[in-house]
Protein backbone atom coordinates (compact mmCIF):
# COMPACT_ATOMS: atom_id res chain seq x y z
CA UNK A 1 0.00 0.00 0.00
CA UNK A 2 2.88 2.40 0.83
CA UNK A 3 4.38 2.20 -2.67
CA UNK A 4 1.37 3.52 -4.62
CA UNK A 5 0.60 6.11 -1.92
CA UNK A 6 4.16 7.46 -2.10
CA UNK A 7 4.07 7.45 -5.89
CA UNK A 8 0.78 9.37 -5.90
CA UNK A 9 2.02 11.85 -3.31
CA UNK A 10 5.14 12.41 -5.42
CA UNK A 11 3.01 12.86 -8.55
CA UNK A 12 0.83 15.41 -6.73
CA UNK A 13 3.89 17.35 -5.53
CA UNK A 14 5.40 17.40 -9.02
CA UNK A 15 2.08 18.53 -10.49
CA UNK A 16 1.69 21.28 -7.87
CA UNK A 17 5.25 22.46 -8.49
CA UNK A 18 4.58 22.51 -12.24
CA UNK A 19 1.45 24.62 -11.72
CA UNK A 20 3.34 26.93 -9.34
CA UNK A 21 6.25 27.49 -11.72
CA UNK A 22 4.09 27.71 -14.83
CA UNK A 23 4.13 31.56 -15.05
CA UNK A 24 7.95 31.49 -15.30
CA UNK A 25 7.79 29.39 -18.46
CA UNK A 26 4.59 30.41 -20.21
CA UNK A 27 3.09 33.55 -21.72
CA UNK A 28 0.21 35.60 -20.34
CA UNK A 29 -2.62 33.76 -22.08
CA UNK A 30 -1.74 30.20 -20.94
CA UNK A 31 -1.21 31.48 -17.40
CA UNK A 32 -4.66 33.08 -17.45
CA UNK A 33 -6.16 29.81 -18.64
CA UNK A 34 -4.45 27.95 -15.80
CA UNK A 35 -5.75 30.48 -13.27
CA UNK A 36 -9.25 30.08 -14.64
CA UNK A 37 -8.88 26.31 -14.30
CA UNK A 38 -7.89 26.68 -10.62
CA UNK A 39 -10.94 28.84 -9.90
CA UNK A 40 -13.44 26.63 -11.72
CA UNK A 41 -11.68 23.61 -10.22
CA UNK A 42 -12.57 24.82 -6.70
CA UNK A 43 -16.15 25.38 -7.85
CA UNK A 44 -16.39 21.94 -9.46
CA UNK A 45 -14.85 20.20 -6.43
CA UNK A 46 -17.35 21.85 -4.11
CA UNK A 47 -20.16 20.61 -6.37
CA UNK A 48 -18.66 17.12 -6.37
CA UNK A 49 -18.93 17.05 -2.57
CA UNK A 50 -22.71 17.31 -3.08
CA UNK A 51 -23.01 15.19 -6.20
CA UNK A 52 -20.43 12.49 -5.79
CA UNK A 53 -20.51 12.02 -2.03
CA UNK A 54 -23.90 13.11 -0.71
CA UNK A 55 -25.70 12.14 -3.92
CA UNK A 56 -27.41 15.53 -4.24
CA UNK A 57 -27.30 16.75 -7.83
CA UNK A 58 -27.78 20.49 -7.54
CA UNK A 59 -28.63 22.54 -10.59
CA UNK A 60 -28.43 25.70 -8.48
CA UNK A 61 -24.82 25.75 -7.39
CA UNK A 62 -24.31 28.97 -9.37
CA UNK A 63 -26.37 30.75 -6.68
CA UNK A 64 -23.48 30.44 -4.22
CA UNK A 65 -20.85 31.23 -6.81
CA UNK A 66 -22.79 34.40 -7.56
CA UNK A 67 -23.39 35.33 -3.91
CA UNK A 68 -19.67 35.01 -3.20
CA UNK A 69 -18.80 36.98 -6.32
CA UNK A 70 -21.20 39.84 -5.55
CA UNK A 71 -20.19 39.97 -1.86
CA UNK A 72 -16.56 40.38 -2.86
CA UNK A 73 -17.47 42.90 -5.55
CA UNK A 74 -19.38 45.04 -3.03
CA UNK A 75 -16.81 44.84 -0.22
CA UNK A 76 -13.42 44.83 -1.95
CA UNK A 77 -13.47 48.47 -3.13
CA UNK A 78 -13.88 49.57 0.53
CA UNK A 79 -12.00 46.85 2.44
CA UNK A 80 -9.18 45.48 0.30
CA UNK A 81 -8.19 42.65 2.67
CA UNK A 82 -8.64 38.90 2.96
CA UNK A 83 -11.70 39.37 5.15
CA UNK A 84 -13.58 40.87 2.21
CA UNK A 85 -11.90 38.65 -0.35
CA UNK A 86 -12.42 35.23 1.22
CA UNK A 87 -14.15 35.20 4.61
CA UNK A 88 -17.17 37.40 3.87
CA UNK A 89 -17.98 35.74 0.51
CA UNK A 90 -17.78 32.28 2.12
CA UNK A 91 -20.02 33.31 5.01
CA UNK A 92 -22.55 35.04 2.75
CA UNK A 93 -22.69 32.06 0.38
CA UNK A 94 -22.97 29.72 3.37
CA UNK A 95 -25.96 31.68 4.68
CA UNK A 96 -27.56 31.56 1.24
CA UNK A 97 -26.99 27.81 1.16
CA UNK A 98 -28.57 27.47 4.60
CA UNK A 99 -31.78 29.13 3.38
CA UNK A 100 -31.98 27.41 -0.03
CA UNK A 101 -30.93 24.12 1.53
CA UNK A 102 -33.62 24.38 4.20
CA UNK A 103 -36.26 24.35 1.46
CA UNK A 104 -34.57 22.01 -0.99
CA UNK A 105 -33.20 19.11 1.04
CA UNK A 106 -36.68 18.00 2.05
CA UNK A 107 -37.04 16.60 -1.45
CA UNK A 108 -34.64 14.50 -3.47
CA UNK A 109 -33.78 13.45 -7.00
CA UNK A 110 -35.43 15.41 -9.76
CA UNK A 111 -37.50 17.50 -7.34
CA UNK A 112 -34.23 18.63 -5.76
CA UNK A 113 -32.83 19.49 -9.19
CA UNK A 114 -35.85 21.61 -10.08
CA UNK A 115 -35.97 23.44 -6.76
CA UNK A 116 -32.28 24.31 -6.68
CA UNK A 117 -32.50 25.42 -10.30
CA UNK A 118 -35.45 27.70 -9.57
CA UNK A 119 -33.76 29.21 -6.52
CA UNK A 120 -30.58 30.06 -8.40
CA UNK A 121 -32.68 31.75 -11.09
CA UNK A 122 -34.34 33.76 -8.35
CA UNK A 123 -30.96 35.22 -7.43
CA UNK A 124 -30.40 35.95 -11.11
CA UNK A 125 -33.67 37.86 -11.15
CA UNK A 126 -32.67 39.88 -8.08
CA UNK A 127 -29.22 40.75 -9.43
CA UNK A 128 -30.64 41.59 -12.86
CA UNK A 129 -33.15 44.11 -11.53
CA UNK A 130 -31.38 45.60 -8.53
CA UNK A 131 -29.69 48.96 -9.15
CA UNK A 132 -27.52 48.52 -6.03
CA UNK A 133 -26.03 45.42 -7.67
CA UNK A 134 -25.50 47.23 -10.96
CA UNK A 135 -28.60 45.61 -12.57
CA UNK A 136 -27.92 43.90 -15.87
CA UNK A 137 -24.45 45.41 -16.31
CA UNK A 138 -23.21 44.09 -12.97
CA UNK A 139 -20.34 45.61 -10.99
CA UNK A 140 -17.07 46.62 -12.59
CA UNK A 141 -13.64 47.86 -11.49
CA UNK A 142 -13.23 45.44 -8.58
CA UNK A 143 -9.70 45.66 -7.13
CA UNK A 144 -7.70 42.64 -6.01
CA UNK A 145 -7.11 42.44 -2.25
CA UNK A 146 -3.83 43.00 -0.45
CA UNK A 147 -2.53 39.89 1.30
CA UNK A 148 -0.60 40.58 4.54
CA UNK A 149 -0.04 44.11 3.34
CA UNK A 150 1.34 42.96 -0.02
CA UNK A 151 -0.34 43.73 -3.31
CA UNK A 152 -1.24 40.75 -5.49
CA UNK A 153 -1.89 42.83 -8.56
CA UNK A 154 0.90 41.21 -10.57
CA UNK A 155 0.22 38.00 -12.47
CA UNK A 156 2.82 36.03 -10.53
CA UNK A 157 1.60 37.08 -7.09
CA UNK A 158 -2.03 36.45 -7.99
CA UNK A 159 -1.04 33.06 -9.35
CA UNK A 160 0.62 32.08 -6.07
CA UNK A 161 -2.41 33.36 -4.12
CA UNK A 162 -4.82 31.31 -6.27
CA UNK A 163 -2.70 28.20 -6.02
CA UNK A 164 -2.46 28.38 -2.22
CA UNK A 165 -6.22 28.84 -1.89
CA UNK A 166 -6.94 26.03 -4.34
CA UNK A 167 -4.65 23.69 -2.41
CA UNK A 168 -6.22 24.66 0.92
CA UNK A 169 -9.73 24.10 -0.50
CA UNK A 170 -8.74 20.74 -2.03
CA UNK A 171 -7.10 19.52 1.20
CA UNK A 172 -10.07 20.72 3.23
CA UNK A 173 -12.54 18.86 1.00
CA UNK A 174 -10.28 15.79 1.04
CA UNK A 175 -10.34 15.86 4.85
CA UNK A 176 -14.12 16.32 4.84
CA UNK A 177 -14.84 13.32 2.61
CA UNK A 178 -12.47 11.13 4.65
CA UNK A 179 -13.87 12.22 8.00
CA UNK A 180 -16.68 10.36 9.80
CA UNK A 181 -18.93 13.10 8.44
CA UNK A 182 -17.92 12.20 4.89
CA UNK A 183 -18.63 8.54 5.51
CA UNK A 184 -22.10 9.36 6.75
CA UNK A 185 -22.68 11.38 3.55
CA UNK A 186 -21.66 8.39 1.46
CA UNK A 187 -23.93 6.22 3.54
CA UNK A 188 -26.82 8.59 2.80
CA UNK A 189 -25.98 8.40 -0.89
CA UNK A 190 -26.01 4.59 -0.81
CA UNK A 191 -29.10 4.10 1.29
CA UNK A 192 -30.82 7.06 2.87
CA UNK A 193 -33.60 5.09 4.54
CA UNK A 194 -31.11 2.83 6.30
CA UNK A 195 -29.02 5.74 7.58
CA UNK A 196 -32.23 7.25 8.92
CA UNK A 197 -33.16 3.97 10.57
CA UNK A 198 -29.70 3.61 12.14
CA UNK A 199 -30.36 6.94 13.79
CA UNK A 200 -28.46 9.55 11.81
CA UNK A 201 -30.24 12.90 11.44
CA UNK A 202 -30.03 12.59 7.66
CA UNK A 203 -31.46 16.00 6.81
CA UNK A 204 -29.03 17.76 9.13
CA UNK A 205 -26.11 16.02 7.46
CA UNK A 206 -27.39 16.90 4.01
CA UNK A 207 -27.89 20.54 5.01
CA UNK A 208 -24.36 20.67 6.46
CA UNK A 209 -22.92 19.28 3.20
CA UNK A 210 -24.99 21.78 1.23
CA UNK A 211 -23.66 24.68 3.34
CA UNK A 212 -20.01 23.55 3.14
CA UNK A 213 -20.27 23.15 -0.64
CA UNK A 214 -22.00 26.54 -0.85
CA UNK A 215 -19.23 28.27 1.13
CA UNK A 216 -16.49 26.91 -1.13
CA UNK A 217 -18.53 27.86 -4.19
CA UNK A 218 -18.70 31.36 -2.69
CA UNK A 219 -14.90 31.42 -2.40
CA UNK A 220 -14.66 30.35 -6.05
CA UNK A 221 -17.07 33.10 -7.05
CA UNK A 222 -15.08 35.70 -5.14
CA UNK A 223 -11.81 34.54 -6.76
CA UNK A 224 -13.50 34.79 -10.14
CA UNK A 225 -14.48 38.41 -9.42
CA UNK A 226 -10.90 39.18 -8.42
CA UNK A 227 -9.61 37.41 -11.51
CA UNK A 228 -11.81 39.25 -14.00
CA UNK A 229 -12.22 42.49 -12.05
CA UNK A 230 -15.97 42.59 -12.66
CA UNK A 231 -19.09 40.49 -12.21
CA UNK A 232 -22.42 40.34 -14.03
CA UNK A 233 -25.76 38.63 -13.25
CA UNK A 234 -24.94 35.82 -15.69
CA UNK A 235 -22.78 34.33 -12.91
CA UNK A 236 -26.08 33.28 -11.34
CA UNK A 237 -27.49 31.71 -14.51
CA UNK A 238 -28.43 28.07 -14.17
CA UNK A 239 -26.27 27.29 -17.18
CA UNK A 240 -23.26 28.17 -14.99
CA UNK A 241 -24.36 25.35 -12.68
CA UNK A 242 -24.78 23.11 -15.69
CA UNK A 243 -21.26 23.79 -16.90
CA UNK A 244 -19.89 23.01 -13.43
CA UNK A 245 -21.84 19.75 -13.51
CA UNK A 246 -20.21 18.97 -16.83
CA UNK A 247 -16.77 19.62 -15.33
CA UNK A 248 -17.52 17.23 -12.48
CA UNK A 249 -18.73 14.57 -14.90
CA UNK A 250 -15.77 15.00 -17.26
CA UNK A 251 -13.41 14.63 -14.31
CA UNK A 252 -15.34 11.79 -12.73
CA UNK A 253 -18.18 12.11 -10.22
CA UNK A 254 -17.18 11.24 -6.66
CA UNK A 255 -13.44 11.59 -7.24
CA UNK A 256 -13.08 15.13 -5.81
CA UNK A 257 -9.78 16.03 -7.53
CA UNK A 258 -11.43 14.96 -10.78
CA UNK A 259 -13.22 18.33 -10.54
CA UNK A 260 -9.96 20.15 -11.28
CA UNK A 261 -9.17 17.80 -14.16
CA UNK A 262 -12.67 18.31 -15.50
CA UNK A 263 -12.37 22.09 -15.22
CA UNK A 264 -9.04 21.84 -17.03
CA UNK A 265 -10.46 19.72 -19.85
CA UNK A 266 -13.49 22.01 -20.17
CA UNK A 267 -11.54 25.28 -20.29
CA UNK A 268 -8.78 23.98 -22.56
CA UNK A 269 -11.35 22.46 -24.92
CA UNK A 270 -13.30 25.72 -24.92
CA UNK A 271 -10.26 27.83 -25.72
CA UNK A 272 -9.06 25.36 -28.37
CA UNK A 273 -12.43 24.92 -30.08
CA UNK A 274 -13.34 28.59 -30.06
CA UNK A 275 -10.06 29.46 -31.78
CA UNK A 276 -11.07 27.25 -34.73
CA UNK A 277 -14.83 27.56 -34.97
CA UNK A 278 -17.79 29.56 -33.69
CA UNK A 279 -19.65 26.35 -32.96
CA UNK A 280 -18.34 25.98 -29.40
CA UNK A 281 -21.81 25.48 -27.92
CA UNK A 282 -22.59 22.68 -30.33
CA UNK A 283 -19.37 20.87 -29.43
CA UNK A 284 -19.98 21.48 -25.73
CA UNK A 285 -23.50 20.06 -25.97
CA UNK A 286 -22.40 17.03 -27.98
CA UNK A 287 -19.57 16.39 -25.50
CA UNK A 288 -22.11 16.44 -22.71
CA UNK A 289 -24.47 14.05 -24.53
CA UNK A 290 -21.71 11.61 -25.52
CA UNK A 291 -20.15 11.63 -22.02
CA UNK A 292 -23.45 10.83 -20.36
CA UNK A 293 -24.20 8.09 -22.90
CA UNK A 294 -20.79 6.42 -23.12
CA UNK A 295 -18.43 7.52 -20.32
CA UNK A 296 -20.34 8.08 -17.09
CA UNK A 297 -17.10 7.57 -15.08
CA UNK A 298 -15.29 10.59 -16.55
CA UNK A 299 -11.51 11.00 -16.92
CA UNK A 300 -10.69 9.46 -13.56
CA UNK A 301 -13.08 6.58 -14.23
CA UNK A 302 -11.44 5.92 -17.59
CA UNK A 303 -7.96 6.07 -15.99
CA UNK A 304 -9.02 3.60 -13.32
CA UNK A 305 -10.41 1.26 -15.93
CA UNK A 306 -7.33 1.41 -18.18
CA UNK A 307 -4.39 1.74 -15.82
CA UNK A 308 -5.91 0.02 -12.83
CA UNK A 309 -5.53 3.13 -10.67
CA UNK A 310 -7.47 2.89 -7.42
CA UNK A 311 -8.80 5.53 -5.08
Amino acid sequence: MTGPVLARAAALIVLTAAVALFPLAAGTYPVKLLQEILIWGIFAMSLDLLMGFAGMVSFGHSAFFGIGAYTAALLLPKFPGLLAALVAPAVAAGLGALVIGFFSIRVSGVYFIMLTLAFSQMFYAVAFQNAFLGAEDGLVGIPRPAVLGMSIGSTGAFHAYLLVIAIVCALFLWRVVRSPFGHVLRGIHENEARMQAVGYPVNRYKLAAFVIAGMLAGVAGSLYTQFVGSISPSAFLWTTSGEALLMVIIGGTGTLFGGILGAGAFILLQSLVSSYTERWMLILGLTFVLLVLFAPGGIVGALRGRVGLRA
Partner: protein
Amino acid sequence: MAGSDLFAQALNGLSYGVLLFLLSVGLTLIFGMLDVVNLAHGSYYMLGAYAGLALIAATGNFWLALAVAPLAVGVVGIVVERTCLRPLYRRGPLDQVLLTFGLIYVFEDLVKWIWGGRIRSIPTPELLASSVNVWGAVIPSYRLFVIAFGLVMAIGLWLVIEKTRLGAIIRAGVYDSEMTAGMGINIHRVFTLVFAFGAALAGLSGVIAGPIQSAYPPMGASILIPALIVVVVGGLGSLKGSLAGSLLIGQAETFGKAWLPGASMLIIYVVMAVVLLMRPQGLFGRALK
Protein backbone atom coordinates in the same frame (compact mmCIF):
# COMPACT_ATOMS: atom_id res chain seq x y z
CA MET B 1 -55.31 51.19 -12.65
CA ALA B 2 -58.58 51.66 -14.52
CA GLY B 3 -60.94 48.73 -14.97
CA SER B 4 -60.32 48.41 -18.68
CA ASP B 5 -56.53 48.32 -18.15
CA LEU B 6 -56.98 45.68 -15.52
CA PHE B 7 -59.04 43.64 -17.96
CA ALA B 8 -56.45 44.05 -20.72
CA GLN B 9 -53.68 42.93 -18.35
CA ALA B 10 -55.69 39.93 -17.25
CA LEU B 11 -56.14 38.91 -20.91
CA ASN B 12 -52.41 39.35 -21.53
CA GLY B 13 -51.73 37.13 -18.55
CA LEU B 14 -54.22 34.60 -19.86
CA SER B 15 -52.57 34.38 -23.28
CA TYR B 16 -49.14 33.98 -21.65
CA GLY B 17 -50.65 31.32 -19.39
CA VAL B 18 -51.88 29.45 -22.47
CA LEU B 19 -48.34 29.33 -23.88
CA LEU B 20 -47.06 28.05 -20.54
CA PHE B 21 -49.83 25.47 -20.41
CA LEU B 22 -48.95 23.99 -23.81
CA LEU B 23 -45.32 23.73 -22.65
CA SER B 24 -45.92 22.44 -19.16
CA VAL B 25 -48.40 19.73 -20.20
CA GLY B 26 -45.64 17.95 -22.07
CA LEU B 27 -43.12 18.58 -19.31
CA THR B 28 -45.42 17.21 -16.63
CA LEU B 29 -46.59 14.16 -18.61
CA ILE B 30 -43.02 13.30 -19.64
CA PHE B 31 -41.97 13.58 -16.04
CA GLY B 32 -44.92 11.56 -14.79
CA MET B 33 -44.38 8.71 -17.25
CA LEU B 34 -40.72 8.60 -18.12
CA ASP B 35 -39.40 10.06 -14.85
CA VAL B 36 -37.41 12.49 -16.98
CA VAL B 37 -37.12 16.21 -16.25
CA ASN B 38 -36.71 17.25 -19.83
CA LEU B 39 -34.56 20.39 -19.62
CA ALA B 40 -34.54 20.49 -23.43
CA HIS B 41 -38.30 21.05 -23.43
CA GLY B 42 -37.78 24.76 -24.03
CA SER B 43 -35.69 23.83 -27.06
CA TYR B 44 -38.77 22.29 -28.71
CA TYR B 45 -40.56 25.60 -28.11
CA MET B 46 -37.67 27.36 -29.88
CA LEU B 47 -37.60 24.79 -32.68
CA GLY B 48 -41.35 25.25 -33.13
CA ALA B 49 -40.96 29.00 -33.50
CA TYR B 50 -38.16 28.64 -36.06
CA ALA B 51 -39.89 25.85 -37.98
CA GLY B 52 -42.94 28.11 -38.10
CA LEU B 53 -40.78 31.00 -39.30
CA ALA B 54 -39.30 28.87 -42.09
CA LEU B 55 -42.68 27.53 -43.19
CA ILE B 56 -44.25 31.00 -43.25
CA ALA B 57 -41.28 32.29 -45.26
CA ALA B 58 -41.69 29.41 -47.72
CA THR B 59 -45.48 29.31 -48.08
CA GLY B 60 -46.69 32.63 -46.67
CA ASN B 61 -49.37 30.73 -44.80
CA PHE B 62 -49.46 30.98 -41.00
CA TRP B 63 -52.14 28.30 -40.61
CA LEU B 64 -50.13 25.78 -42.57
CA ALA B 65 -47.13 26.55 -40.35
CA LEU B 66 -49.30 26.15 -37.26
CA ALA B 67 -50.29 22.68 -38.41
CA VAL B 68 -46.99 21.41 -39.83
CA ALA B 69 -44.29 22.89 -37.55
CA PRO B 70 -45.46 20.98 -34.45
CA LEU B 71 -45.38 17.74 -36.45
CA ALA B 72 -41.78 18.42 -37.45
CA VAL B 73 -40.86 19.11 -33.82
CA GLY B 74 -42.67 15.91 -32.82
CA VAL B 75 -40.44 13.97 -35.23
CA VAL B 76 -37.37 15.52 -33.58
CA GLY B 77 -38.85 14.37 -30.26
CA ILE B 78 -39.17 10.80 -31.56
CA VAL B 79 -35.53 10.78 -32.67
CA VAL B 80 -34.31 12.18 -29.32
CA GLU B 81 -36.35 9.69 -27.30
CA ARG B 82 -35.26 6.70 -29.39
CA THR B 83 -31.56 7.51 -29.70
CA CYS B 84 -30.65 9.42 -26.55
CA LEU B 85 -33.13 8.75 -23.76
CA ARG B 86 -34.00 5.09 -24.31
CA PRO B 87 -30.48 3.80 -23.51
CA LEU B 88 -30.65 5.66 -20.20
CA TYR B 89 -33.93 4.37 -18.75
CA ARG B 90 -32.09 1.73 -16.74
CA ARG B 91 -29.80 4.35 -15.19
CA GLY B 92 -30.87 6.95 -12.65
CA PRO B 93 -33.03 9.93 -13.64
CA LEU B 94 -30.02 12.23 -13.16
CA ASP B 95 -28.21 11.01 -16.26
CA GLN B 96 -31.27 11.89 -18.29
CA VAL B 97 -31.42 15.39 -16.83
CA LEU B 98 -27.76 15.94 -17.71
CA LEU B 99 -28.27 14.60 -21.20
CA THR B 100 -31.19 16.92 -21.89
CA PHE B 101 -29.07 19.80 -20.57
CA GLY B 102 -26.48 18.98 -23.24
CA LEU B 103 -29.23 18.91 -25.88
CA ILE B 104 -30.14 22.53 -25.06
CA TYR B 105 -26.71 23.64 -26.28
CA VAL B 106 -26.90 21.42 -29.36
CA PHE B 107 -30.33 22.70 -30.45
CA GLU B 108 -29.59 26.34 -29.65
CA ASP B 109 -26.36 26.34 -31.60
CA LEU B 110 -27.92 24.50 -34.54
CA VAL B 111 -30.63 27.15 -34.72
CA LYS B 112 -27.99 29.90 -34.57
CA TRP B 113 -26.08 28.13 -37.33
CA ILE B 114 -29.10 27.85 -39.63
CA TRP B 115 -31.01 31.07 -38.88
CA GLY B 116 -28.41 33.33 -37.26
CA GLY B 117 -28.47 34.75 -33.74
CA ARG B 118 -30.57 37.87 -34.14
CA ILE B 119 -34.24 38.33 -33.23
CA ARG B 120 -36.61 37.40 -36.07
CA SER B 121 -40.17 38.61 -35.97
CA ILE B 122 -42.98 36.35 -37.11
CA PRO B 123 -45.84 38.23 -38.79
CA THR B 124 -49.30 38.06 -37.27
CA PRO B 125 -51.71 36.30 -39.65
CA GLU B 126 -53.71 38.87 -41.63
CA LEU B 127 -57.03 37.54 -40.46
CA LEU B 128 -56.08 38.44 -36.86
CA ALA B 129 -53.97 41.55 -37.43
CA SER B 130 -56.64 43.94 -36.14
CA SER B 131 -57.73 44.79 -32.62
CA VAL B 132 -61.10 44.53 -30.98
CA ASN B 133 -62.70 46.72 -28.37
CA VAL B 134 -63.82 44.65 -25.39
CA TRP B 135 -65.38 46.57 -22.49
CA GLY B 136 -63.37 49.68 -23.24
CA ALA B 137 -60.09 47.83 -23.58
CA VAL B 138 -58.34 47.50 -26.94
CA ILE B 139 -57.28 43.87 -27.34
CA PRO B 140 -55.30 42.54 -30.33
CA SER B 141 -57.47 39.87 -32.00
CA TYR B 142 -54.48 37.55 -32.08
CA ARG B 143 -54.39 37.42 -28.27
CA LEU B 144 -58.05 36.47 -28.17
CA PHE B 145 -57.31 33.75 -30.71
CA VAL B 146 -54.45 32.44 -28.53
CA ILE B 147 -56.72 32.30 -25.49
CA ALA B 148 -59.53 30.56 -27.37
CA PHE B 149 -57.06 28.15 -28.95
CA GLY B 150 -55.60 27.33 -25.54
CA LEU B 151 -59.06 26.66 -24.12
CA VAL B 152 -59.89 24.32 -27.00
CA MET B 153 -56.56 22.53 -26.55
CA ALA B 154 -57.11 22.17 -22.80
CA ILE B 155 -60.57 20.66 -23.33
CA GLY B 156 -59.27 18.43 -26.12
CA LEU B 157 -56.39 17.18 -23.97
CA TRP B 158 -58.71 16.54 -21.08
CA LEU B 159 -61.01 14.50 -23.34
CA VAL B 160 -58.11 12.48 -24.73
CA ILE B 161 -56.58 11.78 -21.33
CA GLU B 162 -59.82 11.09 -19.44
CA LYS B 163 -62.08 9.55 -22.04
CA THR B 164 -60.04 7.47 -24.47
CA ARG B 165 -58.26 4.14 -24.20
CA LEU B 166 -54.94 5.80 -25.01
CA GLY B 167 -55.58 8.33 -22.24
CA ALA B 168 -56.28 5.51 -19.80
CA ILE B 169 -52.96 3.90 -20.75
CA ILE B 170 -51.14 7.21 -20.25
CA ARG B 171 -52.77 7.76 -16.86
CA ALA B 172 -51.86 4.22 -15.87
CA GLY B 173 -48.29 4.82 -17.06
CA VAL B 174 -47.99 8.00 -15.01
CA TYR B 175 -49.23 6.11 -11.97
CA ASP B 176 -47.01 3.05 -12.37
CA SER B 177 -45.30 2.37 -15.67
CA GLU B 178 -43.91 -1.05 -14.69
CA MET B 179 -47.31 -2.33 -13.71
CA THR B 180 -48.78 -0.96 -16.95
CA ALA B 181 -46.14 -2.84 -18.93
CA GLY B 182 -47.03 -5.91 -16.89
CA MET B 183 -50.61 -5.66 -18.12
CA GLY B 184 -49.37 -6.29 -21.64
CA ILE B 185 -49.08 -2.69 -22.82
CA ASN B 186 -46.06 -1.91 -25.02
CA ILE B 187 -44.91 0.81 -22.64
CA HIS B 188 -41.88 1.82 -24.69
CA ARG B 189 -44.10 2.72 -27.62
CA VAL B 190 -46.25 4.79 -25.26
CA PHE B 191 -43.10 6.48 -23.91
CA THR B 192 -42.07 7.49 -27.42
CA LEU B 193 -45.58 8.68 -28.19
CA VAL B 194 -45.86 10.78 -25.02
CA PHE B 195 -42.42 12.28 -25.53
CA ALA B 196 -43.13 13.15 -29.16
CA PHE B 197 -46.55 14.51 -28.26
CA GLY B 198 -45.07 16.69 -25.52
CA ALA B 199 -42.42 17.96 -27.92
CA ALA B 200 -45.07 18.71 -30.56
CA LEU B 201 -47.15 20.67 -28.02
CA ALA B 202 -44.07 22.66 -27.05
CA GLY B 203 -43.45 23.29 -30.76
CA LEU B 204 -47.06 24.40 -31.16
CA SER B 205 -46.58 26.79 -28.26
CA GLY B 206 -43.50 28.17 -30.03
CA VAL B 207 -45.39 28.83 -33.27
CA ILE B 208 -48.21 30.56 -31.41
CA ALA B 209 -45.75 32.63 -29.39
CA GLY B 210 -43.99 33.76 -32.58
CA PRO B 211 -46.21 36.74 -33.47
CA ILE B 212 -46.26 37.87 -29.81
CA GLN B 213 -42.66 37.36 -28.71
CA SER B 214 -40.65 36.89 -31.95
CA ALA B 215 -38.06 34.15 -32.36
CA TYR B 216 -34.53 34.28 -30.90
CA PRO B 217 -32.18 31.41 -30.05
CA PRO B 218 -32.10 31.73 -26.23
CA MET B 219 -35.93 31.78 -26.09
CA GLY B 220 -35.97 28.08 -25.25
CA ALA B 221 -33.69 28.30 -22.26
CA SER B 222 -35.53 31.34 -20.90
CA ILE B 223 -39.10 29.95 -21.19
CA LEU B 224 -37.96 26.72 -19.52
CA ILE B 225 -37.70 28.31 -16.06
CA PRO B 226 -41.32 29.60 -15.89
CA ALA B 227 -42.49 26.28 -17.35
CA LEU B 228 -40.61 24.34 -14.67
CA ILE B 229 -42.07 26.61 -12.00
CA VAL B 230 -45.55 25.92 -13.38
CA VAL B 231 -44.89 22.21 -13.06
CA VAL B 232 -43.56 22.57 -9.50
CA VAL B 233 -46.46 24.82 -8.48
CA GLY B 234 -49.12 22.70 -10.17
CA GLY B 235 -47.76 19.36 -9.02
CA LEU B 236 -45.60 16.97 -11.03
CA GLY B 237 -47.47 14.65 -13.35
CA SER B 238 -50.82 16.40 -13.01
CA LEU B 239 -52.72 17.78 -16.00
CA LYS B 240 -55.04 19.82 -13.81
CA GLY B 241 -52.03 21.19 -11.93
CA SER B 242 -50.37 22.19 -15.13
CA LEU B 243 -53.45 24.19 -16.19
CA ALA B 244 -53.92 25.84 -12.79
CA GLY B 245 -50.19 26.54 -12.45
CA SER B 246 -49.98 28.07 -15.94
CA LEU B 247 -52.88 30.42 -15.33
CA LEU B 248 -51.51 31.42 -11.92
CA ILE B 249 -47.95 32.03 -13.15
CA GLY B 250 -49.23 33.78 -16.31
CA GLN B 251 -51.20 36.27 -14.23
CA ALA B 252 -48.46 36.67 -11.61
CA GLU B 253 -45.85 37.49 -14.24
CA THR B 254 -48.09 39.89 -16.20
CA PHE B 255 -49.36 41.81 -13.21
CA GLY B 256 -45.88 41.81 -11.70
CA LYS B 257 -44.58 43.59 -14.80
CA ALA B 258 -47.36 46.18 -14.59
CA TRP B 259 -47.36 46.85 -10.85
CA LEU B 260 -43.84 46.07 -9.66
CA PRO B 261 -41.57 46.75 -12.62
CA GLY B 262 -38.53 46.81 -10.32
CA ALA B 263 -39.08 43.31 -9.01
CA SER B 264 -41.21 41.73 -11.74
CA MET B 265 -38.80 38.86 -12.38
CA LEU B 266 -38.96 37.88 -8.73
CA ILE B 267 -42.75 37.43 -8.47
CA ILE B 268 -43.00 33.92 -9.89
CA TYR B 269 -40.38 32.67 -7.44
CA VAL B 270 -42.29 34.18 -4.54
CA VAL B 271 -45.44 32.40 -5.78
CA MET B 272 -43.45 29.16 -6.01
CA ALA B 273 -42.00 29.53 -2.51
CA VAL B 274 -45.43 30.28 -0.99
CA VAL B 275 -47.06 27.30 -2.70
CA LEU B 276 -44.21 24.99 -1.68
CA LEU B 277 -44.37 26.12 1.93
CA MET B 278 -48.07 25.33 2.10
CA ARG B 279 -48.19 22.30 -0.21
CA PRO B 280 -44.74 20.81 -0.89
CA GLN B 281 -46.23 18.47 -3.52
CA GLY B 282 -47.73 21.36 -5.50
CA LEU B 283 -51.37 22.35 -5.90
CA PHE B 284 -52.59 19.12 -7.51
CA GLY B 285 -49.63 16.81 -6.93
CA ARG B 286 -49.69 13.49 -5.18
CA ALA B 287 -47.96 13.47 -1.77
CA LEU B 288 -44.19 13.18 -2.14
CA LYS B 289 -42.67 9.78 -1.66
